[in-house]
């Protein structure tokens, strides 16, 4: 148990020295994405081969043992480039190997561990760009890492490596050099804004809690990252859990809280176990617990697992869920800062917000203000997904343009398709189109065009995506997740969904667009919580940008993107048809007829548009028109 600041510092020196002593380090990504691609087998294979070769390797930092000249083999946090996983980084050279299989390990060890070269076959090589060093890969070049600075560079499961990399220095500084008031001033000055979507000034929130008369305060972390297409917070909880805990502890010290709660969604089992592991490790060292490092500050952490309700991402629903109730939002005021968890003043921030705090305290607000625009400083992590070349997690300064994100970092569209839109902010957000490409990504600029940063999911869509169907998809999601407490959301989203469903099914009516907009207006103005208020955003935003697509569905009964099955007509191209009868045999309703070796014909009155013929045809003769 560490009793003083000096003890922690001396431990840091020891661990930093151990890390330095390692001759080389092999960092195998061990997060949800890469594990799914088989990274744990790759890790095992590295350890086994090194041992078989009699090479000294360390999988964990140990006290009193010299790691001089050993090879460190570590399970690291997410490097971000999930698509090319499993990813393996070799330090100190900074080589990044992609799509590594267990059988590739021997080659990597020979080339880069025993030798000082590069296994050319396994490095990044895409669209004529070849790069051995991670920092030279286009995907990484334009990124700035603050929150994710450790991701991919240290062992995600080890408090020792976190400390060696300078972890808990900010907590030290806070406890020994600053008063709670100093911290509030520093966070205020840094202009840090909540990364959960709303962009509320964090310093103001903390100050409001600190100023409440009620003596018991709580600190709560919202790890209920429910927006489909977003996984930044998962990555931080799994990959650098101590950074988030450190941020929460600084918050607790600043507002006078003794207990902290972390609410994690049920779909993230690994985040729960990594956080629990991190809390246990920090407790063993005396960094979490009674009288931290010999000071008067004490803190206890609790983890609460969600049970599958998106609405629990809303503040008052989240605290209700921690209290063991139905996760339903309540009328505000009183706000969470006045009466939050167990009706006590509560600081509620999301994962990424807390993860920003240690760097701000350690380096000062002025340093933070030097990144990004003055009114939304710092960086933002985005999950870049959809029909784009490079999918994964990125972190860029606020104010970076969408064009830089999609075309430079993301490498542009897949399969040479045209860019159509990007959905930002999930089911509460809107879509951005070609004309918005040069707009800076920050809280205020997005609000102006009717979108929001949300938690940071960017789903890129190409020309083949039907925007009406996308709107239906989101409305279906929100409708399912509506808790049912307030009428506008419960009934209104249902009616909107019905209208969207009939439009994509080819039964849209004149006036449907206007009706959708009217309903959207009512729901946004009258719903109880954020989920309802923003539920119509995807619909309004797609109507604004793609009204002609809605009109084509309603009036011409056509889906311009060819995605809405009910609006597609199947035809057999007589030029391409070989008359093999395979389509006729696959048709479930007997709508196709013809004679062997001459072109077959589809009877459109019988056709149910299932598409079985098109997928069965070996000659591409069945066309959607």
């Amino acid at each position, binding site marked *: 148990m560490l009793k003083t600041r000096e003890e922690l510092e001396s431990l840091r020196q020891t661990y930093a020295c151990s890390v330095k002593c390692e001759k080389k380090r092999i960092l195998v990504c061990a997060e949800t994405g890469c594990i799914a691609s088989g990274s744990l087998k790759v890790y095992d294979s590295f350890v086994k081969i090194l041992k078989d070769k009699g090479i000294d390797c360390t999988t964990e930092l140990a006290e009193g043992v010299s790691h001089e000249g050993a090879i460190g083999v570590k399970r690291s946090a997410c490097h971000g480039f999930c698509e090319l996983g499993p990813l393996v980084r070799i330090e100190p050279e900074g080589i990044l190997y992609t799509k590594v299989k267990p059988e590739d390990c021997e080659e990597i060890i020979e080339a880069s561990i025993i030798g000082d070269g590069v296994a050319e076959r396994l490095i990044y090589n895409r669209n004529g760009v070849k790069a051995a060093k991670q920092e030279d890969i286009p995907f990484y070049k334009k990124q700035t890492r603050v929150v994710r600075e450790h991701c991919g560079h240290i062992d995600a499961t080890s408090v020792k490596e976190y400390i060696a990399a300078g972890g808990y220095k900010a907590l030290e500084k806070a406890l020994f050099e600053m008063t709670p008031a100093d911290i509030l001033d520093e966070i205020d000055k840094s202009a840090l804004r909540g990364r959960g979507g709303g962009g509320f000034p964090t310093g103001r929130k903390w100050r409001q809690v600190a100023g409440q008369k009620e003596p018991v305060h709580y600190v709560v972390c919202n790890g209920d990252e429910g927006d489909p297409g*977003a996984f930044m917070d998962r990555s931080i909880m799994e990959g650098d859990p101590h950074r988030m805990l450190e941020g929460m502890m600084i918050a607790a010290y600043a507002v006078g809280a003794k207990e902290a709660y972390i609410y994690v969604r049920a779909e993230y089992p690994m985040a729960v176990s990594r956080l629990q592991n991190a809390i246990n490790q920090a407790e063993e060292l005396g960094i979490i617990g009674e009288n931290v490092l010999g000071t008067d500050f004490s803190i206890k952490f609790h983890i609460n697992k969600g049970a599958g309700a998106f609405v629990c991402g809303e503040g008052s629903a989240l605290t209700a869920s921690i209290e063991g109730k*139905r996760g339903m939002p309540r009328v505000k005021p009183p706000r969470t800062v006045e009466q939050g968890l167990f009706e006590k003043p509560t600081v509620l921030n999301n994962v990424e917000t807390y993860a920003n705090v240690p760097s701000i305290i350690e380096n000062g607000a002025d340093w933070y203000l030097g990144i990004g625009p003055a009114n939304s400083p710092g960086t933002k992590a985005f999950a870049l997904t959809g029909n784009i070349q490079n999918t994964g997690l990125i972190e860029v300064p606020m104010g970076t343009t969408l064009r830089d994100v999609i075309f430079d970092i993301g490498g542009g569209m897949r399969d040479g398709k045209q860019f159509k839109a990007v959905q930002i902010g999930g089911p509460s957000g809107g879509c951005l189109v070609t004309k918005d490409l040069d707009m800076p990504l920050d809280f205020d600029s997005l609000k102006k065009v009717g979108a929001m940063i949300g938690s940071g999911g960017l789903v890129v869509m190409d020309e083949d995506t039907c925007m009406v169907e996308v709107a239906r998809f989101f409305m279906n999601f929100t409708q399912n997740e509506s808790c049912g407490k307030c009428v506008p959301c419960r009934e209104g989203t249902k009616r909107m969904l019905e209208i969207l469903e009939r439009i994509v099914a080819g039964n849209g009516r004149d006036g449907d667009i206007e009706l959708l907009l009217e309903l959207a207006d009512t729901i946004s103005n009258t719903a109880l919580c954020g989920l309802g208020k923003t539920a119509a955003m995807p619909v309004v935003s797609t109507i604004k940008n793609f009204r002609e697509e809605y009109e084509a569905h309603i009036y011409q009964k056509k889906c311009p993107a060819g995605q809405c099955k009910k609006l597609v007509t199947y035809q057999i191209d007589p030029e391409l048809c070989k008359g093999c009868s395979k389509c006729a045999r696959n048709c479930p309703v007997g709508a196709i007829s013809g004679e062997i070796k001459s072109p077959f014909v589809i009877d459109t009155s019988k056709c149910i548009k299932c598409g079985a013929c098109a997928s069965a045809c070996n000659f591409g003769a069945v066309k959607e028109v």
Partner: protein
Amino acid sequence: MNKDFDYALLDKVLEEHEYKRSAIIAILQSIQEHYHYLPKEIVPYLAKKLGISEAGIYSVATFYENFSFEPKGKYIIKVCDGTACHVRHSIPILERVRQELGLSAKKITTDDLMFTVETVSCLGACGLAPVMTINDVVHPGMSPDKASELIAELKKEG
């Protein structure tokens, strides 16, 4: 009380959570982890021990999507239909899985209690879309054919 039901497990779980009412969600989660669903017998028992009404327990248990009073299959297949998976065509995968197992949106578990098929709104593995999980193991880059192969393997294993 159902005499054949093993209440000892419930006592153990309640003990672990110090009989705290606020821990009801965690208690139900532990019970479901054991049975893969929530047997009806637990409700009156928990109500008595925690001093909550039976309706109070039902209100929580039916609110959250993860809880189920219906038994589930040995293999729980979750097809992700989050945005990223959706735009990379997750629905044909779901349709194929249901077709292979004779299931639908209404009937989610096979009669032999081998398979349950559900959708999930995002597993946070969007970089590998479309994905599905079988008993929490993530399978990346799925296609309808790959899904059929996986199901055939599971059927063989039994």
